[in-house]
Every structure is written in C-alpha cells, then in structure tokens.
C-alpha cells in the first residue's frame, strides 16, 4: 500500500530512534468515506490537512461543512496533480452524491532538458538524481532551485531559471544564464562589529576572481564555525546582467559562551567537557578557549589562544597554548604538561586553502610504564601544514568531494634523546569523488592514506626508551584499519617506528528512499621499525557497513574482517561511530 505523503524519512527515524510521537504510521488513507472513496485497485494517497478542509469540508463552520461533489472533485483533482497524479479518473455520481477516485499512475521525471540561454559548459548530469522522482511540486521547486545554484556555481551569478513540465515526465529548464561574472566589491549590509579585513580573512575569493556562489557560502560558514559572526550570508546584487556588488550580511551574537557537553566519539566514550570560549577577543577578533575535557582514554585541561596579531595581515596568527593531559592507552600511560607557541597563516589560492604553522612545544612527559616513572622534558620544533580543497571544506558535514591533507613534522634534538636526533613525520590524506557531481550524491568513492615514520640522521632505529611513547605509531580502529581493534597493532607493548595505511570506501547515498547508505571498504596497512622501512606482514581489512544521517548526526557502522595473510590471523571487528565521516 503506497503512502506517498508520509515522509518515509520520519518512519525510518521512528523505527531507528523510537520517537513515539512520530508514529503517525502509514495506515490506509481514507479521504472522506461518506462522500469520496477510492476506486478498486487505485493507489491510495493521503490527503494533506488543509486540502482535506476543501475536499471534505470543515465541520467547525456550517458554510464549509458540506462541499458539493463537483467542487470537491475539482479540489481533489488539483491536489492529486500536485502530488504527481496527473491523470486521475474522478467519477461523480450526482444522484448518489458520491465520488469515486482512481488516482492513476504517478508520473515521474523522465528527462531533464535545458533550453534558452544555455552556457556552453552546462552539464545536466548533477541534476539527474531527480530522474524517476515524482513530477510533483516539491521536485519542480528543487529542480528550479538547484539549477540556479548550478549556474551560480559556474560563474553565472546573475542568472535566472524558469521551468515547465509535461505529463510524459519531461522537465524543460528555461535558462537565462547571462554572462560570466567576477567577484565584485563586497559591501556590508549591517555595520560590522569587527574590522572588515577580519571578515575578509575568511573569504576564499578576491575581487576580480571568477564568481562561484559556493565560495561565498564557504566564507559565511567559516565565520560561523569560528564564531566571529553568528551568521553571514553573501547576496549578489545585479543590475543589467552585471554583478555590481556582493552584499555581506553578517550578524554578530554574543562573543563569549559557556558550554557543557556529554557524548561519544568512536574512540572515546563516554566523554564530557566544560568549555569557556571568547570568539572576538580584542579588536583583531582573536579567539581564546579554556577547556576541561575527560574521556575513558584521556583527560586534559587546555588554554588555547589564536591571536591575529598583525593589523596589516589579518590572516597571520600567533598560536600559543597550554595543556595538562593525562592519557591512558593500552600500551602506555602518560601525564604531560605542554606549552606551545606557533605562528601561522592561512592562504586561499585557486580552489585550495593552505594553512602552514610553525612553532615549538615545550613538554614535560611523565610515563608510568616503567617501575620508576620516567620523566622527559622535551623542546620539539614542529611544522604543521594543512591543505584542503574548498569543496571538501564546504561539504565537511557530509563529505562527498575534494581532498584534505595534513602533514605534521616534529623534531627532538639529539641532546634531548641522549642519542641521535629523532624526526617524526606524519602525513594524512583523504580524497573523495562524487560520481557525476550529483547535487545529492548517488555514489561516493573515497580513498585515504596515512604515512608516519620516525627518522634518524644515520638511519638507526630510534630507541623507544628516549622518545615519548605517543610518538610511536599504533594502527587499528575506525580511523585506519577497520578490521582490527583500536590501536591493537602492533601487538607489542609499544608502537612501531613507521606505519603506512591505505583505505578505500565506496558509498551509495540515495539508494533507498530513507537515509540509509550502504558501503563497502578495504583497508591495507604495514608497520615498520622507522626510517621509512616497513616489514611484513601486510594487514588487510575488507568489510561492509552503512551510514545514516539522522537529526542527531551521522551514524556509521562497519563490520570488517582483520586479516594477516602471513600468519593466517583473522578477526572480526565492529565499529559504530557517531559523527565520524570518512
């Protein structure tokens, strides 16, 4: 029995989360049985609340209590057509005062055609996800809005779209692309509470760059994530097919906040934190965060300042921090006091965002794995280079495209290790591909890798006794080898000197009407003693899983088989993660 109007998403959540109030259910929809009935064999469509007033009458008022059959049939026909039942057969028996309705077949979108002022590089592929969707008002609204978004993403910032649809399922988009636009001068709608250059540091575009509406969306999102502005939107203002200004509408909420949180990540559960944060500190809109965090694995107290120190360059920042942390991993237990001082800058160039940071950390680490706890005091110069594409950042909440890389390089001079100087490099990367660039992806293919190694100048194996235990590499878990338990590789009591992993995942969003995305995965991993050397065995993790976007965040579950071919070791590992994305 079809139930087209009740969102299957709700039904799914009802089953998934168990909200009783949403159990409206998909019963057998009746219209008004005394007057209107479904023809035998007809699909039964649930009538929306307000439509029911006009079809069945409003018992609260005598003037609307009875709807004459012809009027009811007319409203019913309009309603069914709005739900993509374009050829309903409505039989009115005036003598019996009865209406019999055969809703007929629901019309789906069969093709999408672009006409009018179509740009030469227009590609209808991203819209093909709407094929086979019911030809109803919501679909047409979405097609219209998404076509406009596509044009504006291609640089046609002053474009307009209208459409018409035919009962055979054809949808014809009438495009008025106009000319390609460039980013014009930005104008503030509201008087900003911070220097306009501070807002500009979040903008991944410069005046004169080819226009792309996604970049203005990203700028607003960056400001909101950093809490510099509560909301920020960019509105292109066009006159005679030319974008004259980009109006920036930023609102500024409270600058300070207290937060208390309870929850879980895949690796740490339960966790809790208390946080105080100031988002617009001083005239530079710097940020200060003081946080007390605790989980089953680590507990720490952090003070973190990001100071945009130079008035002449609002993208440059100084990043001092202070941390006291207790960490209790399976392989080691440490208590660390750390003072950081970094300097960095953000760069937006082309479709990339780069964020290099350089600085040093002064750490005092107490390791409890020895009969007498060992205490190391280390001054480690550090270089961090983060790079990601703008589209990766834009879709961070639901990754589908783009790539992200992070390189961390740290160094312990030889006088601190009491042997050779030790270098540590750790490179992480993720790349995602959205098949046909669908606006709502149908197939997302992802790959990720990690490469970490300790290096010594002479190629000798670093002595674990003289380096912090968290410098060694541990594999296993949701972040790299999903067929093995978290940090269970290597099986020794300490980590390895080098590690390399590759992981591949294929995910099919939109395969079902409800938000359930199956996925298959395959992870590979090697470990080694350091200096870029890797030993046998090869660790394999084939598996399957599913992802679901719920109102409470993304839930992912995977089941993978951990395999070590050389030893014949096998292990089955299940992970359930909240909020984690590939």
């Amino acid at each position, binding site marked *: 029995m079809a139930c087209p109007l009740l969102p299957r998403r709700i039904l799914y959540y009802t089953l998934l989360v168990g909200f009783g109030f949403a159990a409206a259910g998909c019963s057998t929809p009746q219209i008004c049985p005394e007057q209107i009935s479904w023809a035998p064999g007809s699909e039964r469509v649930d009538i929306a609340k307000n439509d029911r007033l006009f079809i069945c009458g409003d018992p609260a008022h005598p003037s609307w209590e009875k709807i004459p059959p012809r009027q009811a049939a007319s409203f019913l026909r309009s309603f069914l057509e709005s739900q993509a039942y374009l050829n309903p057969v409505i039989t009115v028996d005036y003598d019996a005062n009865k209406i019999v309705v055969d809703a007929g077949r629901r019309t789906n979108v069969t093709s999408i055609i672009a006409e009018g002022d179509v740009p030469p590089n227009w590609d209808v592929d991203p819209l093909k996800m709407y094929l086979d969707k019911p030809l109803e008002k919501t679909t047409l609204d979405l097609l219209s809005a998404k076509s406009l978004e596509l044009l504006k993403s291609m640089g046609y910032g002053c474009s307009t779209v209208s459409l018409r649809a035919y009962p055979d399922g054809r949808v014809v988009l009438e495009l008025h692309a106009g000319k390609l636009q460039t980013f014009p001068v930005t104008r503030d709608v509201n008087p900003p509470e911070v220097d306009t250059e501070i807002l500009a540091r979040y903008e991944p575009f410069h005046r004169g760059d080819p226009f792309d509406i996604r970049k203005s969306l990203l700028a607003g999102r960056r400001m909101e994530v950093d809490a510099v502005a509560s909301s920020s939107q960019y509105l292109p203002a066009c006159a005679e097919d030319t974008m004259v200004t980009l109006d920036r509408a930023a609102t500024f909420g409270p600058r300070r906040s207290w937060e208390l949180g*309870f929850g879980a990540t895949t690796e740490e559960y339960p966790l809790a934190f208390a946080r105080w944060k100031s988002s617009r500190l001083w005239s530079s809109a710097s940020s200060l965060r003081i946080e007390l965090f605790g989980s089953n694995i680590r507990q720490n107290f952090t003070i973190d300042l990001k100071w945009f120190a130079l008035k002449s360059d609002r993208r440059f920042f100084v990043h001092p921090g202070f941390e006291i942390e207790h960490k209790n991993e399976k392989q080691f237990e440490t208590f660390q006091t750390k003072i950081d001082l970094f300097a960095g800058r953000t760069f937006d160039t082309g479709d990339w965002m780069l964020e290099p940071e350089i600085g040093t950390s002064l750490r005092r680490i107490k390791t409890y794995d020895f009969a007498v706890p060992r205490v190391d005091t280390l001054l480690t110069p550090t270089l961090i280079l983060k790079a990601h594409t703008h589209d990766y950042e834009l879709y961070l909440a639901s990754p589908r495209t783009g790539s992200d890389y992070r390189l961390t390089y740290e160094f312990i001079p030889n006088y601190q290790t009491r042997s050779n100087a030790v270098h540590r490099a750790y490179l*992480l990367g993720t790349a995602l591909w959205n098949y046909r660039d669908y606006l709502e992806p149908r197939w997302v293919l992802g790959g990720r890798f990690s490469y970490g190694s300790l290096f010594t100048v002479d190629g000798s194996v670093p002595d674990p006794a003289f380096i912090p235990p968290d410098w060694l590499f541990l594999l296993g878990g949701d972040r790299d080898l999903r067929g093995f338990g978290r940090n269970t590789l290597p099986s020794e009591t300490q980590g390895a000197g080098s590690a390399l992993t590759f992981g591949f995942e294929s995910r099919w969003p939109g395969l079902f009407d409800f938000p359930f995305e199956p996925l298959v995965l395959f992870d590979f991993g090697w470990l080694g003693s350091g200096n870029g050397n890797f030993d046998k065995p090869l660790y394999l993790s084939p598996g399957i899983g599913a992802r679901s976007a719920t109102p409470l965040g993304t839930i992912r579950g995977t089941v993978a088989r951990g395999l070590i071919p050389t030893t014949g070791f096998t292990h089955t590992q299940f992970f359930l993660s909240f909020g984690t994305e590939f």
Partner: protein
Amino acid sequence: MKKRIPTLLKIFLSLLFGIMGLACTLALILWFKPQWVLTSERASKFLSPLKITLKVTKPAINEWFFDIELAPGCYTVPDRFASPIFFCVQRGHLAFTMRFHRPTLLQLTALNHVDFQITTLDIKSGPESPPTTISTPTGPPAWTRYIADRFTWGPFHLGVDEMRIADGDILLHARISNFGPTPTLDFAADAKSKGFKVSAHGKIEQRNSRIEIPEAKAVYEELNPGPDVKPMHITSELTGSYDFEHALLQLEFSARWKNPLSQLAFIAAEGGRFRMDRTGMWASSRLKVALHGKTPLGGLPLMTLNVSAELRRTESEESPPIDVKLDLASYDFAGIRAVSDLEIRILPKENRTDLELRRGDLRIEVPEFKKTVTALARTSWSIPAPFAVLQGPITFHALPFKNGENIVEIPFVLNTDLKSAEQAIQLETRATLDLSPKDLTPVGIKLAILLKKIRLRIPDYDPIAPVPALRRDPRIVRYSEKEVLIVQKKVPALPPTTFPIEVTIDGPPGSVSLLNRFLIPSIELQPKVKFAGKTGVMTGEIGLSNEVDIEYLNRRIKLESMLLTFTPSAAFSAVVSMRRGGYRITANIKQAQGKTRILLAAEPPLNEDEIISLIIYGMPRNSITAEQTRSVGNAQTAITSEAIGVFSFLAFASTPIESIIYDPATQTYSAIIRLPGGIVASIGSNWETENQVSLSKALGRNWAVSTELIKDSEGVDRGGTLLRWRKSY
C-alpha cells in the same frame, strides 16, 4: 472664293454620308449576318486563353441565337479583374437568345441550354473586396419582373466536381441542374474544410409569376473541435415563394443549432416566418434554448422565447420604425423564474437609431436562493461552498432605455440580499448594455457593483500545514494546452476587443468582511476598484477598514493598516505592529513586482537585528543563544534579499520560531517552529509555496544534540555526537 466653300461642304458631306453608309452597312451586316463578324477566332482571341467555338444564328428578325462551346481542357484565367482562377472543363456548352427590345436595345430573353461540367476549379486568394452594404429592400428588384415577364429557361446543368477556394482550405462539390419541362433548378453543394463541413440542397421553381422554393436544406457540422468539446451542429430548412405581381416574399424557416456553447445543448428556431411586401416586413420565430446538465428531476427544462419583429412603411420620408416583441411566458427552473413581455421599438433615423421600451419588462428572479441551492445540489451546476448556505432573494430586471446622443443604453439592475448565520452577500449591481446609435450594435457593458455587505468565512486553515493545492500548477503543461498553443501560433493576434466590459466595484468602509479563527475580530475591507475590459487594466484600491489582531500559538500581532492598490500594477502595503519585551515594534511592508520590502522600527529605537530578535524570540539579542543569533541573521538576510513575502513575515511574527536557515544559493529559507508539547515542525523552503514537514524532538532552551569535531590524541579532528548545553553572553 464663293465657289470653293460649297465644294468643301460637298466633300465633307460626302465623307459624312460615306461613313454613315459604311456604319449602316456594318450594322445591317451585324443585324442580318452577325456570323460574318462574330467568328470563333475573334471570340477566342478576345476571351484568350479560353478556346471557344461560336455560332450565331438569327431565328427571327429581332432575335439572335448564340451557341458557344468551350473546348475541353484546363485554363488559367489571370487576375485581370478578380482572383486568378484555374479550372479544367470536361464539357461546356452555353446557348442563349437575345432580342431587340426597347428601350434597352438588346436583352437576354432565354437561356436555351446551359451544360457545364467542370472537373477542377481552383480560386486563388485575391485582394479583399470592400464589404458590401445591404440596404433595406423597398420593393421587388427590376430583374425579377423581367424574369417573370419575358425570360425562358432551357435545359440547365452546371456541375463542379472539385472546387478549391482559399488556397484549398475549402473543397466544394456543387451541381445545379434543370432538365424537366418546368423551369426548375435543383441544386446540391458540399463543402469541406479542416474545421467544418457544409452541405446544402434544394429546389427553385418558377411558376408563372412566382418563384418558389419548395424545399431547401442546409447542414453545418464542426469538425475536430478539440478534446472534451462537443462538436457544433446546425441544421436548417427553408421554404418560401416570391410573387412578382404583388412583390410578396414569404419564407418559412426552422433551424437547430446544437452545442453552440459548452453550457448550452441547443438553440432551435421553430415556426419561423418572414413576410415582405410593399407595405413592410414582418418576421417571427419561436426560439428554444436547452441547457446541458441534469437535475434530480431530470433534464433542465427548455427555455421558449417568442420573438417577433415588424416594419411598416409610412408615407412620410422618415425611415419606418421596427417593433420587436420578446415574449417569454414563464421559465421556472431550480427556483429561478424568468418572465418577459418586452415590446421594443427601433426607430431608424437619418444618422442614428433610437431604441424605445414601449411596454413590458424582463425580469429574472430567485425568490429564495436556498431553493436554487437545493435544486442544483446534485448537478454539475451546484453552488459551491461557502455560498451554498446563503438564503434570500436575487432579482434582475430591465429598466427603460435611454437614447443618448452618442449611445443607446439598456439598463438592468441586479440585487442580492443573501444571508446565513455568519455570512452575507448584499449587493446592488447596475448594469448597462451600451449600443451604438448608428446601427444598434453592442459597444460595451458597464457594471457598477455596490457592495453593501459581503461577509464570508475562510475555513480553519492551519498555517504550518502544507498549503492546499486549490489550483493547478501552471508549470505543468497539459497536452491540450500545448495543442492550443500550437494553433495560436498560426492564428494572428486577435485585435483588441470591440465589446469591452467596464466593472466598477465600490463599497463603504467595512463592506467586505473575512472571518477566520486567527483574525480577531475579522478583516474588514473597503474596495474601490475599476476594471476596464478594453485594456484589461484594473485600477483602484482595497483598503483595510479596521485594526485586526492575528493570533496564533499564543502570539499576537496587530494589522494596523493594509492597502492593495492597482495603478495598474498591483502593489501591497501594510503596517503591522506588535509588543515584544517592552518594545512596540512596527513593520512597514511594501510588496510590488514580486519583491517585498520590510522596514522595521521600534519604540524606543533599536537596531534592525535587535528588532528581529524581539520579533522571533521575544528577547533582545543579548539574551538569546548563539544559535538563535544565527537565526536572527538568517532572517535578516532573507528580509534583505527580499525573499520573505508578506505571509512569511506574518508567520514569522505570529509563530514561535526555533530557528531559521537561509540558503543564498537557492534563495530559499526554512524555519523550525516550536509547537505546544515540545514538538518541532520544520517548514522547508518558504511559507509562500512550500509544504514539506518533518518532525524532531525539541530539547529545551540552551540544550541541543549536535555533531562536533573533537580533536583526538593526534590532534586530528574527529566527529562526535554530543548532548550539549550552551550559554552565550
């Protein structure tokens, strides 16, 4: 000198007599031996490209007999005088007799033989000829007398197998023949076009001094009228005679017009008579009109109207008056009663025509509207809600005509006094049908509607439920509409209507009331609107007469003023006020050309974002959470980008909002509304058009379930789900 003058005169006279003699000789030759001059060669040359054989004989001293045969073949006659014609003739034979007769010298006295069989006749489109004016006949034309006195008919046959008119748009087959002993013409013709088919056949006889039409029938059929449209069908019959002696024309006719309009089954003219003699003209007919549809008692009754008109000549030089009678004895259906005994006199004058209502009345009454509602309840003409509960009378009647200098006016009055427990329709409509004084053709209708009291109920609509689909989505093209569009491409644009309707709607303040549970007490409006049908332009305004409170989910706003103006483009303006957090907030809303500008003000003065914070959350901005501040920003952006319409703003102001999201890429926004019981309704896109609803659970102020990035032990951001409490300040 004296001798030379007579010589010249002699020469001149000799020449004159010589020429006269030559002319007389030629005349005598033409008179007695015309075949010497009128040869086939000369005639063919004159009538080129036609090839004819001409024989001229003289059966009597003052008679000539012409026998012409057209050679079989195809001919193209160039457009020297009229439209170019192409035809193929199988046989063509014409024989006629001409006689010398004073005072016209030569007259056609007999068509001895006519036999033409044309296989193809193609008449191309030629220049349009000016319209011919038909004057009122004052007596028998001279030719009728001539035919009655002297004309003789011979065997007659004229046939066209296939005649193309207007570039082949119309195909015609015709045959006119007479082979009998009496002068009788049988005719039959069929014409077919893409849109219609016509056939006619009949007989015309001459009996002494009378020409009679013993029978004549014609049928018109509409072809391919379109889906769901019944084809139009007209049949007509005619008999009659014309007496040459008394110049008396008498005709009897009947006609039946099937499906003239979608609401009408047929119009029939029965027992039609027409008589014309030297004293004047007289015509009468009984018109029957049948409506489509049925009632619980069966089909709708026939409307029978006796129509008669009389024109009697007078001795004076002035044009005679025409008296028309419209007699509708009684028509009673579904509580609707129509009566007419109108007697109208049409007075043609030198440059104009006056109209006079001599006596009688045309009256249509509904003594009790409820009876009509009940009678039509189970028909396709049922009275729709919310009007079906109304009770009271409706009257419509004609008033004496007015003959103005430039216009002849036929006034009508329509009054309604309909009421129910909470609704009312009380209006007085004065309608005028304007006629041209020149020829009494309608030139316009004026409707002046005075709304005394219109009070209607709007059902208990749920503002956050999906918007009902009361009309078809215009973006979805129906195939029938597409076909109409294709047809329209071929047809040139219609000229501006020459029969405009002007409507004026007026009413005192509060004359229109709309009742709804959210409107306290009700919306009272004053309309002053004028619609000019000739230009399709509406001007005027509809204003709010009272202040209205709009209350929904324990929130109240006041609609202080509202004005809808047509100048002629529609513009809407309204002032809404509300009290929030000790402030009096006013919103000045102006909507025109699809854009809505909303100007916000507060007393004491506040910034716009502070005002929006008060409107949405009832608190100043420093008291709301960061998420709420984000929603305030989104709402402000949506207002700035003119994406929020009037209804959305009213909904924002009168609904407890949880959050607002605006997407500048698609220029759509969505709002999450907090409903009693902690349930939250999320409205996708916007309130103007959208209707997607989903549900989730509210967690209360400052509490939220969210996904956040949390740095792991490596300093890498990992996603996590948190139950979070946040307090911003």
